[in-house]
């Protein structure tokens, strides 16, 4: 039986359709979740997709972090369920306290939309085992508030514990770090590697027909591997 992966839609979410498609491409079942849902319909993992949520009033992701479905996601994530936040989803996970730090306005003050090279800094997590060590991947990014910030103590802890999952690579803002993110951080994960967030969009890079590469599929297949193995373990 295919693993079930929930994909949340908030008012303003744009990338739920692509996220669900990426889940299906990785031979998992995509289960739509609505922001007002109070339970997760028995899913094995959740993707919090990008776009906007509640107009991003107050701060990007701040209102969504308080939505009924996020209360269920927070409880499930704290109990060990894998959760991936992409773009606005990353902002929501930070606002919800599931990941440390915050995303602020890009240093250039511009909305930036381009294909971006990233380095996979840790290929041992739920979301990254399909990547080679230090793999470099090319996936789209599109955001105005993608500048990752945290205190030096938090940044040191993230780096020391292998919790920087993706880093921008390339020279200068034209190719590399596009938004002033501290230590070139594009994505991070929880201590157990199950809760992950990144600003660029793996779900837009799953098929050369519609994206720059299919590099983004690596995250979704990594999840599928992990869910399949963990189900087997539980069954055995």
């Amino acid at each position: 039986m295919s693993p079930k992966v929930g994909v949340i839609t908030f008012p303003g979410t744009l990338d739920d359709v692509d996220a669900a498609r990426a889940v299906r491409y990785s031979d998992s079942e995509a289960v739509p979740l609505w922001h007002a849902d109070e339970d997760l319909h028995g899913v094995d993992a959740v993707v919090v997709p990008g776009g906007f949520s509640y107009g991003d009033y107050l701060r990007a992701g701040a209102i969504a972090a308080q939505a009924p479905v996020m209360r269920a996601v927070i409880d499930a994530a704290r109990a060990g369920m894998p959760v991936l936040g992409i773009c606005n989803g990353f902002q929501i996970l930070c606002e919800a306290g599931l990941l440390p730090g915050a995303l602020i306005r890009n240093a250039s003050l511009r909305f930036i939309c381009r294909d971006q090279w990233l380095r996979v800094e840790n290929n041992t997590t739920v979301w990254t085992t399909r990547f080679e060590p230090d793999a470099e991947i090319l996936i789209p990014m599109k955001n105005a508030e993608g500048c990752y910030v945290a205190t030096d103590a938090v940044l040191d802890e993230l780096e020391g514990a292998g919790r920087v999952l993706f880093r921008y690579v390339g020279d200068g803002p034209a190719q590399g770090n596009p938004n002033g993110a501290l230590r070139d951080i594009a994505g991070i994960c929880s201590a157990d590697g199950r809760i992950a967030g990144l600003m660029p969009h793996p779900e837009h890079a799953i098929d050369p027909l519609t994206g720059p590469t299919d590099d983004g599929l690596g995250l979704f297949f990594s999840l599928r591997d992990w869910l399949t193995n963990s189900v087997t373990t539980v069954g055995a």
Partner: protein
Amino acid sequence: MARVAVDVVIKPEILDPQGKAILAALTRTGHPGVSSVRQGKHFDLEVDDSVSDADLEEIAGNLLANPVIESWTVTRLGRDGHHPEAALAAPEAAL
């Protein structure tokens, strides 16, 4: 009912590119004496008597501000919307 003001500002150590852009505009428009601008948010709340100071701190710290990047102040205003201390100061000013 009482009025409460919550002011939220970005912490000094966090980059504020919007403040920088405003500062650049002020410099261009003939105000070179302004040396720093930090952009923040101001919230006016109307609350009933059941809302304690601890509730207000929770409201400010859990939703209105993000403690990772912002700091905030909570100020209870008088029932007519004036700051109680300002109201106290007024007779003195009249002297």
